[in-house]
């Protein structure tokens, strides 16, 4: 899965949770809680959706690593690569 595909998936799920957001205007370094005002329920729903879509089970301790688009693309890319290596 390419970084672009991961980015698209992440943004699709983010906008599904917060429909008032526009995927085109979400900045790479916008923090989902402090900048985009997601609450803990929204974050859990995002993590759940990413688990379903990408097969990556993000532990609670790693939530900070998906807190922006840039961080998430990097983190999810590494986790998907790890998974495919078995």
């Amino acid at each position, binding site marked *: 899965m390419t970084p672009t595909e991961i980015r698209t998936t992440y943004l699709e799920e983010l906008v599904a949770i*917060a*429909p*008032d957001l526009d995927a085109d205007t979400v900045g790479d370094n916008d923090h989902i*809680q402090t900048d985009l*005002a997601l*609450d*803990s*329920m929204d974050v*859990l*729903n995002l*993590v*759940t959706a990413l*688990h379903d879509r990408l097969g990556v*089970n*993000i*532990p*609670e301790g790693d939530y900070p690593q998906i807190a922006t688009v840039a961080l998430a693309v990097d983190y999810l890319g590494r986790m998907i690569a790890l998974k495919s290596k078995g």
Partner: protein
Amino acid sequence: MPSLGSDMESAVLAEWLVQPGDTVTRGDVIAVVETQKGAIEIEVYESGTVTELTARVGTELPVGAPLAVIAAEREDAAEPEGKSQAPAAETPVAKAPEAPPMGGLPPGGLPPGGIAASPAARVRAQALGVDLAALTGSGPGGAVVLADVEAAAPAPAPEPEKPRRRGLDLDEMRKAIANAMSRANREIPHFHLSQTFDLTPAADFLTAHNAGKPPAERLLMAALYLRAAVGAARAVPELNGWYEDGFRPSDTVNIGLAVALRGGGLVAPALIGAEAMDLAQIMAGMRDLVSRARAGRLRNSEMTQGTLTVSALGETGPEAMAGVIFPPQVALLGIGAPQLRPWVVDGQVIPRQVLTVTLAADHRVADGRIAAGFLTEFISLVSAPERL
């Protein structure tokens, strides 16, 4: 049109989900209405067969206006007068008979020997041949107002449909919140009790519970709060119910949850029958309620049957909240955001995550002792989460 809150005067019928001839069972969702608080699904309070949809989609209807006619499954033996023209016991639906009569009569009720109605409503009722006694008033104190009479009048000709309100109108929601909270501050003699306690046992419990679990099975701290509030409401039934002409305790705990909507606004739907739910079920119910609140798909029972509400500020932010009670409830538990503070544990001062909870209670039904009992039970449950 059922009342969906003390602040509601009318709503626009957005969609019928049944047709004449359909069989419905009490609790079925039969229609969707647009209110100041967004779209609400209307559940039917009778079982039977839909014979007529009297309200048209797109029309604004005052609280109490008939929406549809349902032929009951059996003759209503309790009908006091012979209704020779009625083929069966026909009941206007969705009158919310068991919901607390929000926006209903003030203490004192009807003026002696008369029907509360505005002068304009009386004149119009006479002109249209409408029986005021048959109407449910939507005005102050349940008085029949002009709009009630006009809604009840046989429509002379199809009127041009009002433009249908779509989605959530934040200005309207702000008005609804203002009305409900003004009523609360006008009628309820609030008092507040606060206590701060160490949240570490709950946080540790949550971390251990969630470790290794897939996201769908994880718990949020808010689920612990809700479960503990349900336990406290069971232990202190004096604060779980509704105040109408006096306090009516509830057998069930329909725990209300204040949900902030993106872009502004607030709704406080209830998790019905939460006393029978374990922690996982509370979490699932809360997830469902929050997602439907944000999607505008709450049900009327969830909007009207809450018995005690919890409002939590989330993970970061202010440390305490002294809230306003949602009438006709008599208590609201305000939960601040956890804060890192110096705390005394076994004689040593050490940094701890602490939580401040503030109970708003109604002095018409309780005093400080009862409210303190609620807080004590809540804190003891959150502090020993394995008991939840």
